[in-house]
């Protein structure tokens, strides 16, 4: 514990900005939603296929895996930490579920238990990250990066050169089966989002995650077991990444090491675009999900309106930067330092 420093007296900002500050935070909360609506309207005008039930299903189905990942990541981001372990955890979960369920590589078939095992394995990764970060006080940037490498390493060993394809018919049903026109996995994602919202709003974990991210010193001085709740948040996130790994495996019908490639960056982008700040304490599950939809709609819409693949990357980048800039516009202040 740092001794009390005779720090600066907190500067008073005076009365003037209170109103505009309120307006700003409103925009920070609802700006991304506005951006999403605007994107949807634009694409509807430009492409007749965009605003169809079929495409909505398509968008929701495509967003499912990223949404699940982002729910887990959001809790870590709210703490003010970062998680770069997603690719590794998903790789290990993907390979282990594929090898534990009826598959082409071995005779093991644990059925549904295989999924439980993969999710538990993900939770173990999160637990390890949490314990290392809090116990040894290693920044989460490093621990999670290490965990990712470990996860990919384990997955590579499990892979052993031959892709295990899932042969379980039940899993095949989950991959292609639909309820109300949406794939079953989309309902899994919706379930995870609801669980995430409940955890955020109605449990101590959610409350404490925001408190720790907002002012860790205060959390300590309020008697919150900061280390424990950080570890719990990482563990929850790990379990969710494990589930995402399982979902990808079900979708693709086989366990691949690359199950999570690109997802880490996509999830961070989605969370930030949605208004969950990397500095912690702000945003939440709903914000992040709006971000996920923005990212997904963007990819989908650009393909539908026929933007050449050679410029799509650049167009996506421009739109994302523009969206973040518009959202952050009222928050900008003179002399505010942004790093």
């Amino acid at each position, binding site marked *: 514990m740092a001794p*009390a420093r*005779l720090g*600066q007296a907190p500067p008073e900002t005076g009365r003037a900005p209170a109103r505009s*500050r309120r307006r700003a935070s409103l925009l920070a909360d609802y700006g991304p939603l506005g951006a999403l609506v605007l994107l949807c309207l634009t694409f509807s005008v430009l492409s007749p296929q965009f605003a169809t039930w079929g495409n909505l299903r398509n968008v929701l189905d495509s967003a499912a895996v990223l949404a699940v990942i982002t729910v887990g990541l959001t809790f870590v981001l709210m703490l003010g930490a970062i998680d770069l372990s997603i690719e590794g955890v998903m790789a290990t979960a993907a390979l282990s579920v594929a090898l534990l369920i009826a598959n082409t590589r071995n005779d093991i078939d644990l059925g549904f238990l295989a999924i439980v095992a993969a999710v538990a394995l993900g939770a173990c990764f999160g637990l390890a990250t949490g314990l290392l970060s809090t116990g040894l006080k290693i920044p989460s940037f490093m621990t999670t990066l290490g965990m990712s490498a470990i996860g990919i390493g384990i997955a590579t060993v499990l892979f052993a050169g031959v892709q295990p394809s899932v042969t379980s018919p039940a899993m095949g049903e989950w991959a292609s089966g639909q309820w109300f026109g949406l794939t079953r996995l989309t309902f899994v994602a919706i379930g995870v989002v609801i669980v995430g919202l409940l955890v955020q709003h109605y449990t101590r974990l959610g409350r404490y995650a925001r408190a720790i991210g907002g*002012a860790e*010193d*205060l959390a300590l001085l*309020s008697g919150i077991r900061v280390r424990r709740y950080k570890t719990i948040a990482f563990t929850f996130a790990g379990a969710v990444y494990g589930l995402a790994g399982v979902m990808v495996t079900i979708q693709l019908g086989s366990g691949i090491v690359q199950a999570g490639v690109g997802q880490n960056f996509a999830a961070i982008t989605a969370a930030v675009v949605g208004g969950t700040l990397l500095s912690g304490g702000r945003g939440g599950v709903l914000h992040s999900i709006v971000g996920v939809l923005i990212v997904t709609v963007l990819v989908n819409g650009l393909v539908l309106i026929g933007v050449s693949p050679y410029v799509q990357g650049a167009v996506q980048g421009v739109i994302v930067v523009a969206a973040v800039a518009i959202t952050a516009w009222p928050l900008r202040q003179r*002399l505010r330092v942004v790093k």
Partner: protein
Amino acid sequence: MSAPAEAPVLAVHDVRKTFGETTALDGLSFEVRRHEVVGLIGENGAGKSTLLKMLIGLEQPDSGSIALRGEQIKMRGIAQAGAAGIGMVFQEQSLIPNLTVAENILFGAEGDAIVGGMYRWKTLRQRAQAQLDKIGSTIDVDAMAEDLTFAERQLVEIAKVLATEERTNAEPVVLLDEPTSVLDRDEAEVLFAQIERLRTRASVVFVSHRLDEVLQVSDRVYVLRNGSSVAECVPGEVDEAELRRLMIGRDLEGSHYSEERQLPVQDEVRLRVRDLSVKGVCESVDFDLHVGEILGIAGVQGSGREELCRGIFGASATRGSLEMDGRPIRTSSPRSAISSDIGFVPAERRREGMVGTMSVAENITLPHIADVCAGPVLQRSKERRLADDWIERLRIRTASAAAPLASLSGGNQQKAVLARWMVSDSLKLLILDHPTRGLDVGAKSEVYRLIRELTASGVSVLLMADSLEELIAMSHRVLVMKDGRVTDVVDAPVGAKPTPVTVLERMI
């Protein structure tokens, strides 16, 4: 204190500035003469900050004029103000911690110390040293800013402002924004001596919350209220009470420190501290704190009082024994201290006292979340009712219990922070580390009133305060600490309060 006939160095005439619907400055005029120290006082929101920002070019007036040495000027940014010879010593210190003193002093004004993008260290050091010599400082120009004490950093900032002389060939105007808020009393005295030296070569504007200081160092004092200057006083002709009355424009209800509500100390001992040590900072401290008592702790920076309080709260490791209501307790962590019914309000509200992005309600329930939980599940409606209740009881001015705490004014934020501990019926001891820091006069007296109410209900308080005057006025007794040891205990009953000097003598 003479008023020379020559034109003022700095003259602000009838400036106005509005932000949206709020008027920050409303026809303010004031002037600073050569080699004069001018005091500026006013409540938060009176326009001091806006005025200072205007003087260093961070804000532009909507109307009105600013004249420097007789010439009208318009400044857009600190760099232009510096070039004109106006510099500010910031309340939030503006030195860059990982640069050397020399680099800091000439930062942005390196001139011939940078040739072709490369630092010429020798020139840089020499020129920086020349500035430090002006104020007779012995600070090493090669020291890192972060290794300096707050007082030393302030001197470096003053040197930085003086460096503008080189460019303007005129005596600079030095703006000191709350310079003593980070200093202890003895350091402040050093600063005042420095200001005396400074006035031989510059004009000074001195802004402070501490009225005694303003009266001590200024030649003239302007009182700001609602964006304009309501009075121009000369120290010696007014006292603090008069200034305070001018600042808020009415008499405070009751006395500022609610002294009339200081109840006699009860005999029952609440906290018995024996042989308490915090490694390296304080040693074998003994004292008793009675039920309903406010025990002030006086001491300069480094006396170990902050660490002692943190130790009692379990935020620093301690040795020794603590007894609460006759039963031994151990406070190995804030968590265990809280379960022993101890609360703590830290000095750095923004960093340690509140989560600005969380709502008022969420901030209030933070340490006692179990009260509004059923198992792991939060009962948000119960939380809301509890918060609404306390918002009303403490008269916290907020749009709603769900508004982010950061959107409230400083005084209301602090009330919410106090509510956090008052929520618990079983609270026995509250440790207050500078609870009124950064608050304006009106907010301060409300906080004092709350502390009195708490003690009336039997809560004991350990208090560290911004000024000795405040500490003595609030406390039943004052524990004086020096170099990590308790050197004296001074009684401070109502009507027989010791003078600050009495306590100060024992501190140093």
